[in-house]
């Protein structure tokens, strides 16, 4: 093998590697700038949705990071802020009620109290609303945090479309930060809750904006 052939092979291997890395990055990157409008809210967000195969539960991951002026703001904001994962649509008194019930959470987000669940709308049996009270002074600059909610599926109807919402809150007021719309599809032994779109556009990798 001549020197020039070896050089060409090396260049083409490097280019292939770079293209491959770029493709992987495209699949993994879901971070988008958030438009909630609060100066102390997370700068960027990202979702993943784990439907599982033939399970009675669905897991929704919410990623958040603070940087720049929003990081400075949350650092001095005091302990009254929280992130809320709402397994329903809180607008107009609430829709998509009683479809999901949150039974457990996990998080790397530093908290000042344990998270709590409450009924968001509809029957009080189903707890659709999870609150993560943020320990503001422990938030790091540009650090990736995640929270997740594990939810049991209820009252599924084939073909119905519902949604979950994410917001930043200061106890009294919510600033909407994102949503996932999902479609219920009958299957055995459990229904599938499959995403159809998400907002802001790009926050759920591979799905269009709503």
């Amino acid at each position, binding site marked *: 093998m001549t020197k020039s052939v070896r050089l060409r092979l090396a260049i083409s291997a490097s280019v292939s590697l770079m293209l491959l890395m770029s493709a992987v990055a495209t699949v993994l990157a879901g971070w988008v700038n958030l438009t909630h409008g609060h100066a102390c809210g997370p700068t960027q967000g990202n979702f*993943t949705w*784990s439907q599982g195969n033939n399970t009675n539960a669905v*897991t929704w*991951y919410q990623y958040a990071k603070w940087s720049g002026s929003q990081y400075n703001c949350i650092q001095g*904001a*005091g*302990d*009254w*802020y929280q992130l809320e994962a709402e397994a329903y649509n809180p607008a107009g008194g609430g829709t998509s009620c009683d479809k999901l019930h*949150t*039974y*457990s*959470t*996990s*998080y*790397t987000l*530093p*908290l*000042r*109290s*344990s*998270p*709590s*669940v*409450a009924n968001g709308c509809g029957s009080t049996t189903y*707890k659709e609303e999870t*609150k993560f*009270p943020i*320990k503001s*002074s*422990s938030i790091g600059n540009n650090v990736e945090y*995640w929270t*997740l909610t*594990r939810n049991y599926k209820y009252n599924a109807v084939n073909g119905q479309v519902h949604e979950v919402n994410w917001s930043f809150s*200061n*106890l*009294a*007021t919510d600033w909407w930060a994102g949503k996932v719309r999902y479609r219920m599809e009958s299957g055995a032994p459990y229904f599938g809750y499959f995403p159809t779109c998400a907002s802001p556009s790009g926050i759920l990798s591979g799905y269009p904006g709503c």
Partner: protein
Amino acid sequence: MNIQRNNAFRHTKVVIAATSLVFVLGLWLLGPRIATVLSGGFTQSAPSGAFQYAVQREHASVEIDVTFNGNGGQADVQRYVQANMARAQALLQEAAGERLWTTITFTKPLTAQEVEQLLRDAGVEAASYTQVGWTATGQRMASTSFRDPVAPDFNLKQLAQDAISSDPAAPDYDARMAGFMVVDGVMTISEQGLGRLLADPRVYLADTTAYEVQKLVGVTEASVHLPTPFWEMDWGAETIEE
């Protein structure tokens, strides 16, 4: 004419200066109050100075959020713990038999078996259990499981294991949990309940603030969210719970 114009100009300057002074003075006096209002409704400090609280009333329900006073540093937490100890001793004398919402923070992570035994002995009805640990990349993480009152087959150890994802793509995959650090729930104010928790060296804080804050707000029923310093505490070495 010029003299009149100069006088009028001077007068205008005085009015602007006076108005600015009043505005700045007002901002200086009311600034913290305005900031408090803007940051989430009225937040208030307890007369004891040990904590702050915020009240939300929606329809018939009342929600009260409690935080440590100050910036929640070590001294603020210590003052909060001491105030709780003093209040707990007083409640054992004056409010025996009453029900109390509490958040219990342990001094170190406990196993599921230890937690269940401790709660059973003290008669605590748990609403949620929080275990702590580290992700595969070493980041601190926690997991909270909520007890469903109607679920007959509750198994804490199983729930703790199920809280870690088996999906290699998930950020909590391969997480290592150290044990349980926090329990939220209800107990009875008694020597067998609260008294037993206060005497147990594994308990860092058995919070009684809900009793005081409900009296301050003037309600008998409320959802009270109590603070816990668990995130900043020592969770030990990165080991897997046996």
